[in-house]
């Protein structure tokens, strides 16, 4: 799972049909992006119900706006931006907690391998769930979706240095959560 999982090319013909409102073409697009889009939403908002709502709203937005998509940039990037925007909007709406900060001092990592190297998926997902929503979002957008700090700053309405500090502190907090087995509410995948 990475930004590459979102990099799905949709044939021009399918896009043309979708622009005309063809339900089968729209479903084809939905099926292609169902998993990467939902996973991204889940990592940002942190729970399955909200992720489902984000996905629903993002797809309706896509249906409404696809006629305006002119192909200047890859379709997947356009759709991914819709999903990220919807998810961040939901976070802002639902939780003031989006902007809660963490105060983790960076610690020397030592020679031992980082705990996420050894952790299984379930344990890492639980630890991710223990991060504040914004920290988790920034960490995911940076490491997995490969957005730059500049792009993340623009999307979150924060500064570049804030994005950098969230990535650094989020990593430290994640390490601590995994080391100490501080297990947070489950952020496990539903499928």
């Amino acid at each position: 799972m990475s930004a590459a999982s979102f990099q799905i090319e949709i044939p021009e013909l399918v896009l043309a049909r979708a622009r005309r409102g063809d339900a089968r073409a729209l479903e084809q697009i939905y099926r292609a992006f169902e998993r990467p889009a939902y996973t991204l939403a889940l990592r940002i908002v942190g729970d399955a119900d909200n992720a489902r709502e984000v996905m629903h709203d993002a797809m309706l937005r896509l249906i409404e706006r696809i006629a305006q998509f002119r192909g200047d940039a890859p379709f997947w990037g356009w759709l991914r931006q819709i999903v990220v925007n919807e998810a961040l909007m939901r976070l802002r709406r639902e939780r003031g907690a989006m902007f809660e900060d963490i105060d983790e001092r960076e610690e020397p990592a030592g020679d031992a391998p980082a705990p996420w190297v050894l952790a299984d998926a379930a344990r890492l997902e639980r630890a991710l769930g223990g991060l504040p929503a914004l920290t988790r979002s920034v960490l995911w957008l940076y490491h997995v979706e490969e957005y730059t700090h500049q792009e993340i700053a623009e999307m979150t309405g924060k500064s570049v240095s804030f994005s950098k500090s969230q990535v650094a502190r989020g990593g430290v907090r994640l390490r601590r959560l995994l080391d100490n087995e501080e297990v947070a509410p489950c952020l496990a995948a539903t499928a």
Partner: protein
Amino acid sequence: MSGRDSLIDPSPDTTLAAALRALPESAPQPDLWPELAQALPQRRRRRVWRYVLPAAIAAGVAIALLMPRSPVREDSAPPVASNPATVSSPTATQPAPAQELTQLHQRSQTLERWIAAVAARAPQDSRDLMAAVEVEDLIGLVDVQLGGARGDADALPLWRQRVALLEDLATIRGTAFALAENGDAERANPASLNLVN
């Protein structure tokens, strides 16, 4: 994303990135598509009211204003019909498949000739050009399907679809042509188009 911050920060924690990327993907449960599909007609109606209707009104007004000055004779454009079979036989109630196929072939040829003549003379803006290319792609797809059609029963709906798409294309090309001709009336040569149909 281009350039990435690794250029600025030379030591991103690649092991963390790899661990996060290795997490399994998920899908919404239960399936979300049925809900979205139900919302589709409503959304499309809204879109029609928001975009298509104003565009149609604008196009109608433009054509009404431009047509008196157009050098093209009124009968030079092929008539647009929702059911092409009724165009040349208004008294027919339900033509036989073979008869309808013949009518569709004829209509298809007429439309193609008209579009080819108009396309050669009318400049297209990028938006119209993209729309025209999309429709041409769809016509190409129908042609591929027609190549594999077995008998009239298979071919009939495909020919109907082909004629409908050609009518779409004629509308796109025709609007550009009407606009171009109006701005260029003095230099236009009406005879060349009148020969088409």
